[in-house]
């Protein structure tokens, strides 16, 4: 097990290098540098030269990349960068005085809280809904649930979110319009320090806007997978042996049907985490997705590369966790 995890992590290193290189080169290939303009105007060449020199953007690209990845001292250059390998993601070019690590420390926990709660909501609603629909196949319950599920998958959250604000914040006045209830510092670096009314009243609408799509997706998957399992031979055998319907479902069908559901939780979490942008934007939440998109516009190279790397790490860890859970749930699968 430990060896398996270790090997997976080793395999991951070239992927990270490739992703960082891809992002780094692509960003620099896009016309317009971080210091060509200030706000709504462009800057004279001498000023641009001063700034580029200050941040070493006048170095050749390979050197900038190495400086970013392994640090200036290893390169034998003057400069403060200690490199990604030693946890230094460099300065932000746009938010002068802040480092990329500062930004991530504030925004990642918020996106993670939002993403995790949305996933939880998706599971809590999705799995029971899928089971109920499957058990009542082709009845009105099934049709309503399925139809409702597909409806929710089909409404983009950029429409859902403002409608939620309108109804629940402005007309009914139940929840605050915008913002996020937890503030830094966070417990263990990412958990809110107080889970109180303040936190939940702010979280409810964004979590709902983000999570319903996944909930509906999970419901559909659970339904399909359960129906498929019910059709399998061993279920028919169990039924033939005269077991009660409920026992058949609970003991045999359910456990097997949830395996495919578990496997999509990893990608679903990654999708929720990267898909937070619109919800963060509309609800004015200070998360990483929103920050990433503005950084692209600001040409904040190191923020972009670092956040992309971070997303890749989350994605791979989520997949790894799922693979381990998968093997744990289904003893037939062995690590190789």
């Amino acid at each position: 097990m430990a060896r398996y995890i270790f090997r997976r992590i080793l395999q991951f290193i070239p992927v990270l290098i490739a992703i960082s290189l891809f992002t780094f080169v692509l960003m620099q290939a896009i016309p317009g540098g971080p210091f060509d303009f200030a706000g709504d105007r462009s800057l004279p060449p001498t000023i641009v030269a001063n700034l580029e020199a200050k941040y070493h953007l006048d170095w050749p690209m390979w050197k900038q990349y190495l400086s970013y990845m392994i640090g200036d001292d290893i390169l034998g250059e003057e400069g403060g960068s200690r490199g990604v390998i030693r946890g230094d993601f460099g300065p932000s070019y746009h938010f002068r005085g802040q480092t990329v690590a500062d930004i991530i420390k504030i925004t990642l926990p918020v996106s993670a809280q939002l993403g995790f709660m949305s996933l939880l909501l998706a599971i809590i609603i999705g799995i029971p809904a899928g089971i109920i629909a499957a058990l009542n196949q082709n009845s009105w319950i099934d049709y309503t649930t399925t139809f409702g599920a597909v409806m929710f998958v089909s409404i983009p959250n950029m429409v859902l979110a403002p409608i939620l604000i309108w109804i629940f914040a402005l007309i009914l006045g139940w929840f605050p319009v915008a913002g996020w209830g937890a503030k830094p510092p966070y417990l263990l670096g990412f958990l809110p320090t107080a889970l109180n009314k303040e936190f939940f009243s702010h979280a409810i609408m964004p979590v709902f806007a983000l999570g319903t799509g996944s909930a509906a997706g999970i419901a559909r998957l659970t339904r399909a997978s359960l129906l498929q399992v019910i059709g399998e031979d061993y279920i028919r055998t169990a039924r033939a042996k005269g077991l009660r319907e409920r026992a058949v479902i609970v003991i045999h069908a359910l456990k097997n049907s949830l395996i495919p559901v578990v496997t999509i939780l990893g990608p679903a979490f990654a999708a929720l985490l990267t898909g937070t942008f619109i919800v963060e934007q509309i609800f004015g939440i200070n998360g990483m997705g929103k920050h990433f998109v503005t950084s692209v516009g600001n040409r904040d190279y190191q923020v972009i590369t670092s956040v992309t790397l971070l997303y890749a790490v989350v994605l791979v860890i989520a997949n790894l966790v799922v693979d381990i859970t998968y093997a744990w749930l289904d003893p037939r699968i062995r690590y190789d």
Partner: protein
Amino acid sequence: MRKRLLALFSVLIVGALVLSACGGETVVETVIVEKEGETIIETVVVEKEAEAGEIPVTLNLNLGTEPPTLDPSLATDTTSVDIQENLFIGLTNFNPVTNEVEPYLATSWDIAENADGEQTWTFHLRDDVPWVKYDPISGETTQEVDADGNPRFVNAYDVEYGVKRTVDPATGSDYAYVTYVIKNAAAINGGDEELTIDDLGVKALDETTVEFTLEYPAGYFDGISTMWIVKPMPAWAIDEWGDKWTEAGLIVTSGPYVLESWIHGGELSLVKNPLWIAADSVQIERVDFVMITEASTSFALYENNELDSTGVPLPEMDRVKADPVLSEELRIAPVPCTYYYGFTNSKPPLDDVRVRRAFSQAIDRQSLADNVLKGGQIPATSFAPPGIFGAPEPGTVGLGYDAAAAKASLQEYLDEKGMTIDEFNALDVVLMHNTSEGHARIAAAIQQMWADVLGVTVRVENQEWAVYLDTLKNTTPLEDMPHIWRLGWCADYPDENNWVHEVFNADAGANRLRREAGEFDALTAAAGIEPDPAKRAEMYAEAERLLTEVETAYAPIYHYTSVNVSKPWLTRNFPAIGGIDIYNWTVDMDAKLAAQ
């Protein structure tokens, strides 16, 4: 296996429940911690008892975005500058109504010529403005003391330090170019190795006198003296903390407010500085800013009484104007900014003045303001808006909407070239703007006006801002340059020099218009150093006329307005130069609490 599944899900659910169980009121603070001999800044949770007594007079505003910096040397954007204006005193200040330069830190100033025939500006400063620091743990504002224990007041050496810091190329100040009027500033900032920072034309003569020596006589230097880049700055704090000196708990300030907390990207709070020279006249005790980008969300917050003032999103204008309550709260104030379409003067067919004139005169600016912009924008026929020194009254200079003249002008061109309108359209004229909903609307509307009046089809393109500015550089090959492009300009200081000269002068500016230097360029250069104000104003008016009526090198479209709603309990002003001077505002806290 069922057990395992059950276990998995119970862990998830129990986890959520446990998390929700722990509650408690806590307050977040930034403190400085000594760790292993290294001083670092950390944000910690402090248990705070609810303060007894009255709720402070509080103002809630939306900043829109995170201010990129609170360092006066580095600021370039209105968000950062708005906060800095409330944190730091400046040499001088604009009168919010008349836009005239008034004493602030400097009580008076003289202009003279020194022995070398250079113009010098000597500012005489007051000596009672304290440097202060806010302690987030005790919640107290205390005056800074120097190494000998003497209280620190803002003095001429702080001004000298601030200006030198801005000009020093190692600082990397984006706005350093505005100081180039100061002697040797351009050379030092450009990395001239013959000069040191001490050759810069700024010198503190004593504690309360600072003298600037200029490269050339500049009647508008008082305008520059109001700007953030020449504010006095606290050398000791910057030396101690480096890039981090602007964090809450570390920042040393000199203005009417102090920085209480700053959660990057999320929230920022100011509290009143009790040691401020005019503390008695500051009524609002704390300001809580949120940073919400989405205009419609900000407006929803306002409608929910969570903000006291905010901008009105364009799509909501019809409703706001018709709503009995909101229409009363609506204020439209002019902003010294101009929206314009530049022509690439060397790119056919825009290289012919008749074509440019046709395009400019076919724009119905009034209809655009009424039907598309809806915010009481002033149709522009010249560049500098009202309130800028030397700016002509709108409509007195330049070309307005004249469909017949536009048509005739284009026809004349077509006849001379022996072209049909279809052949003209085959030239594929491109109008480009940077990606934005608002610019897209205006471009679509004007595209249609050109089609209706002139029968011309123009292709509209947009580029993301950074790419767009790269495209507009005058080093871009002509074939990549759009024929017509959108830009805006806002005042740094209210003088025509900052407008027609810095933006359009082919020698001084970026020359995006790709004009040949001529009469206009000589005129704006001469006006900059003309000592007689009346004569200067005349010269600028003539320059504006040359550029629009004679050359039609660009098409001014409109002068901006700020469209805001403010709650009835907030009394605020709209300074003529823009910005938010919160120390001049008041909030009726009883009415505000009653509404909530």
